[in-house]
């Protein structure tokens, strides 16, 4: 089947029938939730604090529920009232707005601590009306997003690019609007698990977070699978154990935060003598 964006404009494609899938199709729900969790991880918010976030193309509120589960408050923005109705049915805590991302975001400067967007951005590359210019719409969207985020915020978009030109178009417009960042490709060698995340940062250039890779590619395969087994046996690793530190560092690396490399000294008791 052809790509959804080629079939109809989003406000028509996401009708009641399509919206129903977001409450009934468990595979679709699982994928949305997984991608949302990864997107939040890439936001690299300071640990354990509630933040005020935006969900762009929030649809049925699946991604928003993941934000809630992690203790954040959110505002969702979507062009499809059928999808937003599902979000209402789901009784999400986030506040919802009906609007078109390509017309710009209607928020005050610095309002939000971050933004996520799951499977929506590719829609902006389409011209659904003769008056639509994808380049202009993308620029308007990114520049309005840049201004409504706080200075150190990130915006993370999981999206389905049609080709490399499209990816280039999005990235160029985002940089023109003031963002730093780029595309992180998780599981690049898997046809099924491969996922694209555009990671945008407001506060200056920083290294892009590390992509997820297939287990077979991982050098530390034997180690990490051993760790997983141990973890399953014991549940969460003992606080501040070596396991715990390594896991925390691994999480920081995946978020692209500066992290010291692991050595044989990691997690060892300090002797107390200097």
């Amino acid at each position, binding site marked *: 089947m052809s790509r959804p964006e080629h079939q109809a404009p989003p406000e028509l494609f996401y009708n009641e029938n399509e919206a129903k899938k977001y409450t009934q199709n468990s595979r679709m729900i699982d994928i949305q939730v997984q991608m949302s969790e990864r997107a939040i991880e890439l936001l690299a918010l300071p640990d354990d604090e509630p933040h*005020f976030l935006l969900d762009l193309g929030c649809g049925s509120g699946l991604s928003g529920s993941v934000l809630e589960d992690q203790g954040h408050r959110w505002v969702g923005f979507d062009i499809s009232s059928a999808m937003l109705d599902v979000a209402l049915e789901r009784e999400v805590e986030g*506040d919802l707005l*009906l609007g078109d991302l390509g017309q*710009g975001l*209607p*928020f*005050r400067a610095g309002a939000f601590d971050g933004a996520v967007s799951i499977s929506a951005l590719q829609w902006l590359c389409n011209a659904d009306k003769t008056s639509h210019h994808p380049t202009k719409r993308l620029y308007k969207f990114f520049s*309005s997003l840049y201004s409504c985020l706080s200075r150190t915020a990130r915006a993370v978009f999981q999206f389905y690019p049609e080709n490399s030109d499209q990816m280039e178009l999005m990235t160029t417009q985002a940089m023109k609007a003031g963002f730093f960042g780029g595309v992180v490709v998780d599981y690049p060698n898997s046809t099924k698990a491969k996922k694209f995340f555009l990671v945008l940062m407001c506060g200056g250039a920083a290294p892009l977070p590390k992509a997820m890779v297939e287990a077979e590619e991982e050098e530390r395969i034997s180690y990490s699978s051993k760790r997983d087994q141990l973890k399953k046996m014991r549940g969460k690793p003992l606080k501040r154990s070596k396991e715990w530190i390594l896991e925390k560092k691994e999480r920081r690396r995946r978020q692209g935060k500066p992290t010291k490399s692991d050595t044989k000294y990691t997690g060892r008791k300090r002797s107390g003598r200097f």
Partner: protein
Amino acid sequence: MKLLTHNMLTSKCLKGVNVGYPLGIVAKDIKVLETEFNSEFVLRIIPKLDWDTLWNAADSIGHSGDLPRTLCDDYENDVEFLKKAHHVLLEVEVINGELVCPESGRKFAINKGIPNMLLNEDEL
């Protein structure tokens, strides 16, 4: 629409509108829904707010209660105050009504709690 969202909303996407803030509220139907109080969140959000706009918005729909008109200096330690702010920001919801652009008078309908911010092509 919660008043926290209202505090962040503008109509500046309209052609010819410069600031588009604050939007007026015409409330036909209001609901009060309790949600969990989290002082950390309230503390984090207060510096981002336009307090006058919050107070006026709450007052205009009859829900300012005893929310202070201005922020006092040591509000961080005043749990009673933080609870009042939480209530006005997150528990009072406009379910049906309109938002009004202060510059152009353009109205944005609110249905089922969702403001419709879609613009016509000729308004861009």
